């Protein structure tokens, strides 16, 4: 008989071996009583004889590596095993899914770690079975502790680092004083709540800090500078900026868009799949938390070079190839499974990202308009938790991501890594699409878990919740762990008690778990109970406004800005080297892993042209029955940031804007998002770089009339290696631009379209090679000028947009890494057509003409009959001669730059695709 109770159950293990890759098997371990017939039935579900073989309880061989998840790590496959068994009438009390690898030879632990396993989420053994994770769970609940803060400064500092609080002394003093005034000791849960809420990740302390210059003068905090630039631009399409979970814009009366881009750098460094996976899940929840339905994802990834050798890796750092594979798989897994197209993005490589890879995950959502505003939470509203169950995953993620990493980070931060469950989030998303009228306020559980979600919603109004009502994945969580857990796929909504029954019925229909944790009170006090006893009792004003403002010293950089040109004799060799450079060459191997077609709304894809292999600038999305849509563009260039962060910031804002304009986006209505990934802000030079980068952002935003609506910073991207060497990232600013496209059927792409068409360069070319890719490929070490802002660009883009709308332009491509030469080569590759260019029309110095990376430049393809009208339209509108005919689409399949450079399109294609001719 199939049904046994847990006390008489026993353990069975099915090994599934694919016919296709037999060296790597999947193991399914289950806890139940199982008859032979049950085994056959279960195997018939888990194993398809055409694809794989299955065997039960096979003894493990001496050269077999058995890998399982550590206790507490989410095991979604195991949950489905239990579900499948229950459909067959078999009661499985617990399950674990693992991997079994046949080794060629015995490996030591270091080799196993380097090739097969990740200690952050996995346990393993060779020649013996690892115990399934569920059998090793802690089931005893540790009680709430009181923490004595009556300590000297040294001891307070030690307390902060031992508990991973990431609080500085000034903050610890304020907390100590608060509790001593209240005449009691804080609980562990209160201390953790304050640490999460006041973390760099949640509170953006450095962006809110007073900026102190070496001469003693004080500048306005960075966040205030960004907000002020948005307020001054005063764009009519901005509905909400720097408020709540996402920026909200409205380009047309019928709908609003929510925009958000997040970083998930630290988690992706130690567990690339889970880190990137939950980065995507988290930013999608931000959009849900802004009461919009997600429609697309973006991703910008910065990795160490794929050819980094093991001996170049600092201790405790995963190899770039494993990070790349894990991150790409993690993004694909979440985006593909939840059913959102992953569209715009970039992939950058630099040795400085070896120990600090960066993962920027963005999401865009849509909501019909008008819709009543969310006015809650109101006193009396219920505190409702929707979605996944809570486990010991992702404890202290906000503080973890706010600290510098070192070789022990992977060992101690295991509990900081979450594993995503996109299916649960999809169900929550489906529910919220139907339930928008049933809540008065909404936010997601991100960093800090319930503590920040309920803490933020309760700001000003107060809340009283009972942790016993939080559904758990398994027993054994301490109260503070329930409160702090960053288990994924959870949303908190405020619900009028009269509407709760309707929401509960809807949640049941969609298969979403709903829990009523308590109420918003109106007394401005955050009270959290466990079995009725308060474990947190904090005034919300202290929680949200009690943090002392930081003062950070800033030393501003003094960049070299004189124009100069490096020596380059082999122009053809340089162009081929640029096209094959990892930062410029085809990203098809990554892009094709992401579903960019789901929802049927992708009009311009990340790969475009005659063979679908040319790089697009911006992407365009439009619902299949909508006439209009939006364009999305990305700007990023850390190499400019190394020597001139202010000009870098302008350049990447300009690049993001150019990308949407060349795709047909309207430059009169561009919304921007910023993401700063930076080093340690307490170092005055690092913070000084950040200060001038923000200045560059604000200046560019004003110049283009393009307001920032949302932003996110990730600081402390540094790694302290065991040898004491510090590895910091280059200043990395990602700008995302979004603009409306009035007629999605009349957009243009960069691929060359017709032989005989003219090629017109817009913008001014200067000798600007600071941080250029030419300098990289020829090994030029000189300090040179980073491309400077071009005052004429805003008027130029508006003129270009009118010409695109008027049908005067058949292709357009922005000039970025590698300058005009790479831009023209990419247009030729995408269109599989040649081009003939006269370099002297661009710049008197041929190296500058070909490879300078001056901002504000766009190559346009124009039919001969429209050239005069196009050139005049641009030059009149921009008030200078910014449009110059530089050549034409060639009749042969060659790309010529005068007589000095001549390559076949096939050579360019091979270099770009890194294939051999």
């Amino acid at each position, binding site marked *: 008989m199939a049904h046994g109770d847990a006390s008489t159950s026993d353990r069975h293990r099915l090994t599934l071996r694919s016919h*296709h890759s037999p060296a790597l098997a999947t193991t399914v371990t289950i806890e139940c009583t199982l008859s032979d017939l049950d085994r056959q039935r279960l195997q018939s579900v888990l194993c398809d004889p055409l694809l794989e073989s299955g065997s039960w309880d096979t003894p493990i061989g001496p050269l077999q590596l058995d890998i399982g998840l550590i206790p507490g790590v989410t095991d979604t496959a195991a949950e*489905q095993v239990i579900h*499948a068994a229950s459909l067959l009438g078999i009661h499985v009390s617990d399950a674990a899914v693992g991997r079994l690898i046949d080794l060629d030879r015995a490996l030591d632990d270091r080799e196993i770690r380097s090739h097969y396993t990740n200690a952050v989420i996995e346990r393993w053994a060779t020649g013996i079975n690892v115990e399934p994770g569920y059998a090793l769970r802690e089931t005893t609940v540790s009680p709430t502790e009181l923490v004595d803060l009556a300590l000297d400064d040294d001891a307070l500092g030690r307390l902060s680092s031992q508990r991973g609080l990431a609080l500085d002394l000034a903050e610890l003093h304020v907390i100590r004083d608060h509790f001593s005034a209240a005449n009691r000791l804080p609980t562990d849960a209160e201390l953790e709540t304050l640490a999460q809420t006041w973390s760099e990740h949640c509170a953006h302390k450095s962006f809110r800090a007073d900026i102190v210059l070496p001469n003693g003068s004080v500048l306005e905090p960075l966040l205030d500078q960004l907000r002020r630039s948005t307020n001054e631009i005063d764009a009519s399409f901005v509905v909400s900026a720097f408020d709540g979970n996402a920026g909200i814009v409205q380009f047309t009366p019928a709908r609003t868009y929510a925009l958000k881009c997040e970083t998930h750098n630290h988690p992706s460094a130690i567990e690339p799949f889970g880190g990137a996976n939950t980065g995507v899940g988290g930013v999608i929840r931000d959009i849900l938390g802004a009461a919009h339905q997600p429609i697309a994802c973006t991703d910008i990834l910065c990795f160490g070079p794929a050819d980094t050798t093991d001996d170049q890796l600092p201790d405790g750092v995963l190899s770039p190839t494993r990070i790349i594979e894990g991150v790409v798989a993690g993004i694909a897994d979440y985006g593909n499974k939840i*059913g959102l197209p992953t569209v715009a993005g970039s992939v950058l490589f630099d040795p400085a990202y070896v120990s600090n890879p960066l993962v920027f995950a963005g999401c865009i959502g849509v909501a019909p308009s008008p819709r009543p505003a969310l006015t809650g939470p109101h006193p009396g509203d219920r505190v409702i938790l929707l979605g996944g169950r809570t486990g010991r995953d992702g404890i202290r993620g906000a503080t973890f991501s706010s600290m510098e990493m070192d070789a022990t980070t992977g060992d101690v931060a295991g509990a900081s890594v979450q594993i995503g469950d996109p*299916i649960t989030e999809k169900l929550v998303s489906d529910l919220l699409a139907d339930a928008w009228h049933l809540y008065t306020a909404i936010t997601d559980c991100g960093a800090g878990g319930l503590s920040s979600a309920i803490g933020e919603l309760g700001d000003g109004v107060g809340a009283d919740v009972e942790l016993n009502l939080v559904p758990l994945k398994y027993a054994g969580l301490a109260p503070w762990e329930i409160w702090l857990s960053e288990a994924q796929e959870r949303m908190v909504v405020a619900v009028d008690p009269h509407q709760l029954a309707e929401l509960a019925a809807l949640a049941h229909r969609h298969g979403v778990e709903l829990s009523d944790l308590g109420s918003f009170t109106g007394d401005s006090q955050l009270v959290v109970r466990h079995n009725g006893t308060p474990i947190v009792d904090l005034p919300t004003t202290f929680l949200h406004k009690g943090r002392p403002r930081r003062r950070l010293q800033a030393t501003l950089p003094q960049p070299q800005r004189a124009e100069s040109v490096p020596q380059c004799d082999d122009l053809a060799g340089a162009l081929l080297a640029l096209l094959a450079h990892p930062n410029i060459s085809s990203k098809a191997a990554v892009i094709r892993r992401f579903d*960019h077609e789901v929802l*049927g709304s992708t009009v311009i894809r990340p790969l475009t042209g*005659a063979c679908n292999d040319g790089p697009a600038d911006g992407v365009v999305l439009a619902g299949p*029955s909508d006439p209009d849509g939006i364009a999305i563009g990305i700007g990023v260039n850390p190499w400019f940031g190394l020597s001139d962060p202010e000009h870098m910031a302008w350049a990447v804002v300009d690049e993001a804007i150019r990308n949407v304009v060349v795709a047909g986006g309207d430059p009169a209505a561009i919304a921007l998002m910023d993401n700063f990934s930076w080093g340690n802000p307490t170092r005055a030079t690092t913070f000084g770089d950040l200060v001038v980068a923000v200045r560059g952002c604000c200046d560019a935003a004003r110049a283009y009339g393009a307001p920032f609506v949302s932003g996110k910073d990730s600081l402390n991207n540094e790694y302290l290696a065991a040898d004491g060497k510090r590895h910091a990232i280059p200043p990395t600013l990602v700008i995302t631009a979004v603009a409306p496209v009035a007629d999605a059927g009349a957009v243009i792409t960069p691929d060359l379209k017709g032989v005989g068409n003219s090629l017109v360069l817009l913008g001014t070319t200067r000798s600007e090679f600071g941080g250029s890719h030419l300098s990289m490929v020829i090994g030029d070490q000189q300090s040179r000028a980073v491309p400077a802002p071009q005052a004429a660009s805003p008027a130029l883009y508006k003129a270009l947009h009118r010409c695109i709308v008027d049908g005067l332009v058949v292709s357009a491509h922005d000039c970025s890494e590698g300058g005009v030469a790479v831009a023209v080569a990419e247009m030729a590759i995408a269109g599989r057509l040649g081009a003939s260019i006269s370099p002297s029309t661009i710049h008197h110095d041929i190296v500058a003409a070909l490879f300078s990376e001056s901002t504000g430049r766009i190559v346009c393809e124009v039919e001969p009959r429209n050239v005069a009208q196009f050139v005049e339209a641009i030059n009149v509108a921009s008030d200078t001669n910014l449009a110059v005919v530089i050549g034409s689409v060639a009749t042969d399949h060659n790309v010529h730059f005068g007589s000095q450079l001549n390559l076949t399109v096939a050579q360019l294609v091979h270099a770009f695709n890194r294939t051999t001719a």
Partner: protein
Amino acid sequence: MTIAISRPRALVVRAPGTNRDSDAVFALEQAGADAHVVLLSEILETPSLLHNAQMLLLPGGFSFADALGAGRLFALELSTRLTAELAAFVAAGKPVIGICNGFQALIRTGLLPGPNLKAALGPNDHGRFTCEWVQLQPVSQRCIWTADLDADIHCPIAHGEGRFVCDDTTLASLRSNDQIALRYSSPNPNGSVADIAGICDTTGLVLGLMPHPEDHIVQRQHPQFIRGHRGGIGLGLFQAGVRHASQL
């Protein structure tokens, strides 16, 4: 008695993890159907929902996260509780289509390729999920969805487990019964046997295919639309199903 129905009612089943249901609804509506999303849990609770429908579509996605192999749990849910109703649906002459994850599920239920035949959809031969555009040649005259199609369909694939495999007996039988509905006429993207992209059952009513014709319904969705490409839309396939259903 046969009553002509102007807009046949089509049900699109959304399992947990299904994600191309709205794409499918758009395609069916454009083809003239009255399309509705029904949750898997609802149709399992109330199988009679099928009685009022003339068409059934199992859309793409990752039902139950495909955690135990693509479509396996979706299929198990259907065959545990809905086997008789699905058989009756087909016996009544009503068309059924499974796309991508829906195809994977139909294969696992045994509705495709049919009794005594053995086929599966395994991991792509290159081992990765891939999203790219392909070209499909309609082959089967038996299949009501493809018999009237006279031009290739251009549409995307987006799958990691789309490699069609079957034993020799099944392949011979698929060929002799005209059950190979669609073949890849562009390079085979996943290592499928005989370039098979879609198959039907012996009645010709049940079609399963890996690619997504529902994502090429309007011309603007084609990647080379900007270069002047026109044609190859997937609408005709859905219109064929709707035409058949409207004559029930």
